[in-house]
């Protein structure tokens, strides 16, 4: 896969284990070079507007402080140049009510924790290709 066509990934996650897991998955297994991970939403808030290059996919944890996933989505949706970028919720809260809220809030999709490692690369590509994925198992 040539470097120039590799997707740019942005991820916000406050749980260090989840961060390490995604890092191993994206950079280790999928060999993606342009992966930015924010440890909290404050960091995200401070840097999101100056992100370069433009991300092709954004993963957001929901239970983050000080802004939660929904609030971060609001921030992203106000940025015109990111309006076509899929924003995927990555959450361990898979109760129905929570999923309702995610859909209502305007997320492009959702992947539940624990992640399914074997299907993740395929799902990832489908999202990049513009498919909406609500994978909750």
């Amino acid at each position, binding site marked *: 896969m040539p470097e120039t066509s590799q997707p740019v990934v942005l991820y916000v996650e406050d749980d260090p284990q989840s961060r390490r897991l995604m890092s191993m998955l994206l950079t280790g297994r999928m060999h993606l070079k342009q992966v930015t991970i924010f440890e909290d939403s404050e960091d995200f808030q401070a840097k999101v507007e100056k992100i370069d290059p433009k991300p092709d996919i954004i993963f957001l944890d929901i239970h983050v402080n000080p802004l939660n996933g929904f609030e971060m989505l609001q921030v992203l949706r106000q940025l015109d140049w990111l309006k076509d970028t899929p924003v995927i919720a990555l959450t361990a809260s898979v109760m129905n009510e929570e999923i309702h809220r995610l859909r209502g809030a305007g997320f492009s999709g959702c992947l539940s924790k624990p992640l399914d490692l074997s299907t993740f690369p395929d799902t990832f590509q489908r999202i990049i290709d513009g498919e909406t994925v*609500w994978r909750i198992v």
Partner: protein
Amino acid sequence: MQSDSQLPRSSKPIPLWRQFRFSLILFFVFLAVVPLGVVSFINISQQIEQAQNRVKEQLESIVELKTNQIALWLNQGVLALDIILSNSRFEQLIVTSVTAPRVMSDEQKDTLTTDIRSFVQSNPYFEQFTVYTLDGVIVLGSSPTDIGKLVTLQPYFQPSLAQREYTQPPFYDISTSQLTIIVTKQVHNSGGQVVAILAGKINLSVLGDIMTERTGLSDSGETYLVSRQNNYLLTPSRFAGYALQRAYRTEAINLGLQGRTGEGIYDNYQIPPQPVIGVYRWIPELEAALIAEVNQAEVLAGSRAAQVNNGLIALIVALTAAAGGLIYANRLSSPITQLTHSADQFSRGNLRERTHVSSRNEIGQLAQSFNSMATQVELRILETQAALERAERADYADKVKSAFLASMSHELRTPLNAVINFTRFVVDGDTGPVNEEQVELLSEVVKSATHLLNLINDVLDMSKIEAGALVLFVEENVDLTALLKSVMSTARSLIGGKPITLETEIASDLPRIRADRQRILQVLINIISNACKFTAKGTVKIIAKTVNNEVFISISDTGSGIEADDQHLVFLPFRQTKAGLRQGGGTGLGMPIAKNLIDSHNGRLWLESTLGQGTTFYISLPIKNEKLEPALS
């Protein structure tokens, strides 16, 4: 619970005329006054009639009396002439003065004149005496100027020659301009021959005295005579301003002068006319009508007093009735008012309000009913409030439970994410080479951790279902074909290396339906997982098609099948079939949850199975699912 705007309005004051007491008073007054009025009317009418009759009788007797007096009076005139002529010397002198006037001495003439004058003076009955010859020449008279005059044209002249005694009814004497009554008597000589007539002009004032004598007459009463001569009054009116020599016409005068006798109520001759009760009689001797009248107003004065009395009595009775009505109405309406007040209070939310009406009548009964109703309502409201509070507490408990479950799900899944996936990185060799035993053991870790995850999901779902808190996320146009594709890819990974053929028969015209996409997927995955799990070899087949108004999906396998006795256990929570127990790894919650989810979609989930041959699960979902309400679009 009850907002202020819903507070019932209190009873408005009722306008007076609609009030119970008003109509009751009116009714009482009506009841009292109407019969009284009728009785009074009859009574007064009778009184008036009686009074009128009494007056008429009285007038009749007066008229009778006056008639007799007139007859007597007229008779007196004749008698007076008789007395005059009974003096033979005087008669002789008259005869002499007529037959041989020259024989009479001056002394005799003087004596005669003096005598005649003295007659007039001594007898108030007559105004004037004259003696005239059969030729009609006055030879003697109380008034010397009359002597020598002729009486031949006077109405009484001829009758006086023909009759011994004659009374000339009133006639109009042109020379005196008066109504005049003359009484005549023939004077005889010694041979019995008529030689002269003695005539007396009656003094009408005596007649007037008779008529104005008002004994027996009331204040306004009068009697008078009206002559046929020109309808002139023969006797003066008792009222001033009514001249004798004027024509008068009233009902009584007209009828009386026609010779009739009778009575009536009519207007008298006065100006303006007064209504009178009168009695009239024809007096032939005088050729006049005798009339007795009494003013009707005076007659009715007595009964008017009775009318006033009756009015006063009616007023007193009406006031008494009104007072009675008021008292009675108050007795009736005060408990009603009290009851209304209590009802108002009660409806304003004062549930302790009870009425204290102690009447023993129907209102008292009503009050008792009201009180027992109030007690019932109060009880019910208290019960309802208690139930609501319980429900609120239960609701709160449910919310707490839901929040706890959500939090637990999150807290369990986060570490499982690490456990499962870090292990898989190791198993997959991402961290360096691992031997077969390590792979096998670490795979068991992944499998157990995944089982734990499923267990958590199922327990959460089941507890939600049991709490009735499972909410579907309903979407329009859910694409079943896409879901089934996803199911097939899961099936393929579940089959792994087993010798199983995956067959599909999915109709191309499968409609999009209203459903919770995730939950339908969950059900399908659950069924296909079981199919793959319990099938060692053969076929797993998915059929999807439209039948009537339903989407029909069947998933069949050629697995171990379910014993007939066990089939009912499949959809019961926490129960597993013998095969399931043998196989292990299940929670026994998957199918009950699936059944519940399909039920929630107003669909049906059932199975057919033969032991040793395989199992088929059937799902039917309505295409038009109106009862299912979509969440946000």
